[in-house]
């Protein structure tokens, strides 16, 4: 019974915290904006962290050894609750160990948490046998490093921290036959290299609403537990960096703009994403969502700078935000625009977002920027309670090909599509909702977007389609050729350049059958296809030379829906589809936008110069290419991340 007093105390605190926290978080929070003090922002953040931990305890069933993640085990160890369950679950869950890079990370977390408590209290939560069991796992289980950017950073951060806990251990104690010192040196070199490349050229797996947690988890691990002060500091700084990247394209907790990777379930329900869970934790927006990354972050002690919440919440003035990212490393078919970083090929990704208090319209330039799960452009509109609402619109040319597969994966031409489709089942389906195409070019200026397609004969899926949510109101096809609709506080005008037809989303039935586990075939409100995506439609066009124009406006900018429609119909528009698609369109602000497939677009006759694109370029964030730095600005508040020197600067700017 040595833990009884600790347990009793922790349970009491946990119960009180739940009781206190419950009413506060059961409803959507109003946005306090810039009016809150730093101290108050941090206090509320810590409350939310505590709420997460308490919720995790609440959902632990100490009588059931068959369920409960290692994250949940870590929280119970941290809180001193259900210790026997936690110890047994640790063993049960590792019979045998599995998950590779997804295994190493929570294992390190629970080891660090157990060590913290043991150092804090002088009492052992885990027995010597438990620790021996853990050490045996690290000797006998050979986890795969993986093949994506997120796999590698999770793997190496975890390896670093695991080795750091046993710094004197020799090669015989580790699965890979390397000593702790060797593992730490290798892991550190990779971590530092990843940070340098990210802050110099942008992330390869950029701005993913699903995978943001695969980066914040390892960075929070570093920030929370690295003994090395430089790595600890860099972990904190990269957390700030990743969250700023989200904050500037955030609308009420939803990640707007173009994304490297999104799964279909989350494309149609943005409020279910890991980024939405982060939106609640870091920006106090949206609603609580159970999320393992949030659990780890809550345990880590990482505290975001208050400027992040202010930037995320301030949507008083619409703004343009540009970013420079890069593609995943290209192995073959690298293309003419490719450049090398340390011997590996990539091409630039030019991101553009127009962030408005009522919507975010964002895009990348099109092309094969990411394998499989790219979202080239998207619209999201503001919803006060976005859960269950499909508050989004996007379009794709459903491309699948070994050309793309072998560009990014080392597999063979004949097997790569099959192997991709085993985990991303919709990859080779014409009604898929995500993916890039080499025949797609996107150009955006503020709230107007032009998409052009030049699809060769013989392409596997010779069509384009655009997602029209069931939650759009007043959708109508106007005699002028425009399709109009309203999404929340945003008016939407969509002008197809070639005829199309309406089909139910997922018209092949692949997803609604439950394929790929993205959607349950049942009517579960949180995972069933019908509750999440049923009723939405796709506008499908089979013309090979094709395109469309999207024009968004705030409802509050027009006296009526009719006024908006009339204004759009009156806009000057010229286009042709042959020999290649081209458009000249004057948007609602009177700016003339010209785009021709295969050429650089122009604004009022001036060609857009992508060569000057910065890593971050907007009112809240600035970063030059290759700078290894990031400047956050909010009013007079300046927060500067200097990765070269592992240094954070905060300052107050002079009044303008």
């Amino acid at each position, binding site marked *: 019974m040595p833990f009884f007093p600790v347990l009793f105390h922790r349970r009491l605190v946990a119960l009180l915290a739940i009781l206190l926290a419950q009413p506060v978080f059961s409803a959507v929070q109003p946005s306090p904006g810039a009016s809150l003090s730093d101290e108050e922002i941090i206090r509320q953040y810590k409350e939310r962290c505590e709420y997460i931990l308490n919720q995790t305890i609440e959902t632990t069933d100490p009588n059931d050894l068959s369920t409960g993640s290692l994250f949940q085990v870590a929280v119970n160890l941290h809180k001193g609750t259900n210790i026997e369950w936690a110890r047994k679950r640790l063993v049960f869950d590792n019979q045998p160990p*599995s998950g590779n890079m997804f295994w190493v990370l929570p294992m390190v977390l629970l080891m660090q948490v157990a060590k913290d408590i043991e150092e804090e209290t002088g009492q052992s939560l885990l027995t010597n046998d438990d620790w021996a069991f853990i050490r045996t796992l690290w000797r006998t289980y050979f986890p*795969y*490093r993986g093949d994506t950017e997120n796999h590698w950073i999770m793997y190496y951060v975890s390896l670093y921290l695991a080795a750091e806990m046993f710094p004197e251990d020799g090669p015989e104690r580790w699965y890979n036959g390397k000593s702790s010192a060797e593992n730490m040196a*290798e892991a550190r070199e990779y971590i530092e290299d990843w940070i340098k490349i990210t802050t110099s050229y942008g992330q390869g797996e950029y701005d993913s609403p699903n995978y943001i947690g695969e980066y914040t988890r390892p960075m929070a691990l570093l920030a929370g537990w690295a003994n090395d002060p430089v790595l600890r500091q860099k972990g904190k700084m990269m957390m700030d960096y990743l969250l700023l990247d989200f904050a500037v394209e955030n609308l009420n907790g939803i990640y707007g703009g173009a994304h490297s990777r999104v799964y279909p379930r989350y494309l149609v329900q943005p409020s279910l994403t890991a980024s939405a869970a982060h939106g609640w934790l870091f920006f106090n927006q949206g609603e609580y969502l159970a999320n393992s990354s949030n659990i780890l972050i809550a345990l880590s002690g990482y505290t975001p700078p208050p400027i992040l919440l202010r930037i995320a919440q301030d949507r008083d003035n619409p703004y343009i935000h540009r970013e420079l990212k890069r593609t995943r490393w290209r*192995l073959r078919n690298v293309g003419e625009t490719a450049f090398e970083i340390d*011997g590996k090929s990539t091409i630039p990704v030019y991101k553009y977002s127009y962030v408005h208090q009522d919507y975010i319209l964002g895009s990348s330039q099109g092309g094969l920027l990411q394998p499989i799960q790219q979202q080239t452009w998207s619209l999201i509109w503001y919803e006060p309670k976005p859960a269950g609402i499909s508050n989004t619109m996007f379009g794709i040319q459903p491309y699948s090909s070994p050309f793309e597969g072998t560009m990014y994966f080392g597999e063979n031409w004949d*097997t790569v599509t099959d*192997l991709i489709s085993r985990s991303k089942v919709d990859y080779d389906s014409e009604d898929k909702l995500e993916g890039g195409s080499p025949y797609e070019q996107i150009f955006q200026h503020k709230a107007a977007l032009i998409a052009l397609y030049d699809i060769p004969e013989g392409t596997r899926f010779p069509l384009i389609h655009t997602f029209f949510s069931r939650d759009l109101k007043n959708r109508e096809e106007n005699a002028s050729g425009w399709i109009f609709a309203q999404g929340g506080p945003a008016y939407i005008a969509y002008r197809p350049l070639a005829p199309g037809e309406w089909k139910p989303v997922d018209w092949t039935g692949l997803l609604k059958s439950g394929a790929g586990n993205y959607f349950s075939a049942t009517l579960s409100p949180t995972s069933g296809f019908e509750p999440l995506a049923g009723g939405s439609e796709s506008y499908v066009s089979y013309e090979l030379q094709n395109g469309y124009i999207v024009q968004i406006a705030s409802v509050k900018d027009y006296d009526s829906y009719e006024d908006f429609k009339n204004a759009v119909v009156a806009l000057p528009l010229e286009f042709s589809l042959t020999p290649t698609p081209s458009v000249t369109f004057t948007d609602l602000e009177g700016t003339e936008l010209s785009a021709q497939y295969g050429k650089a677009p122009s604004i009022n006759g001036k060609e857009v110069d992508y060569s000057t694109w910065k890593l971050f370029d907007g009112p809240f964030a600035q970063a030059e290419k290759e700078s290894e730095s990031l400047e956050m600005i909010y009013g007079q508040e300046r927060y500067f991340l200097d990765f070269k020197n592992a240094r954070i600067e905060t300052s107050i700017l002079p009044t303008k």
Partner: protein
Amino acid sequence: MKFLLSSFFILFFATLPLLADDSLVEPKLFAALGMTKSQKASPIPTDSGVFLYDTVNERWRRFGPTIQQVNSLSTDPSNPENIFLACGNGIVRSQDNGKTWRMVTGWRESDITKIVIDPSNGKNVYAASAWGVTISRDGGDSWSAANEGLVEKFSNSIVVDHLNPKRLLVATTAGLFVSYDSAETWEQIPTTPKIAILGLGRNKADPNIWIAGTEGNGVILSSDNGKTWQSTAPGLSTANIYGVTTDPFNGENLAAGGWGTGIWISTDGGKSWKNRGKELPSQNITATTFDYAQSGRLWASTFEEGTFYSDDMGVTWRSDDVVVPGATGSILGAYVNDLGFISVKK
């Protein structure tokens, strides 16, 4: 034929001084596995690693660590206790005949497709990878990139010329390249197509014969020690050929297989070819090799439908590809990335 056999034995004995005591080593068939067809709805490969064929019990048995995405393996001709695994994670080496293993590469090396060791100096180890050629001059303790002269880095295979160990050929996605200075520099072999070369092999009986499988151009063959190459097997001229092999006991016997092709066999040095193996459960061939211990036996792996052998040049096929009781895995239904022979200590 006599000449070929005698060449083989001359070569065999010529290399003996380089080997450890030959009475202590034997050739073993290996299968390097990426995954099995049971993998669904997950990016994490299922069963994978290395399996060796137990000729006594006619069974496959797991060898080495359970490690994912193994593409190939090789042993040091001068010391078969040194074993190298070519893995997605990098290179894993054993120096004690498989008792213990060590990942000898760091984070810069990954997606290794093939490894060869200099038969005259086991310190020189060469690896092909998705990121180019990486070499070690200290038996695998340290590694560095060696891509000077390569047009594209992605390399599927690499072979060291055992008669002239400073000469290597590498199969890249831009064609075949040769090095005459132990991989310090590379130059394109002019008569080869500038397309992806998927597999590469050299005959042990007649070292003048080299064979390569291509992406989209079928099989190419050299009969002058890799200097000039010609297209062969017209029936495969547009196929993607993943497996090529030559008979170590008879340089006239060649075999090739690729996607949708089944196995094609030549018994006259490539002058004529016959399509065999139509009764195999799949015509998608991922790897093939002639047996180095049993003359006339040919092995072929189909894509996730089993690994088979034929003792009658492909007329009939047999499989011992069954689950091993008590073993941690099997190659049943595996995606075999490579099939070949290594020398192992008895």
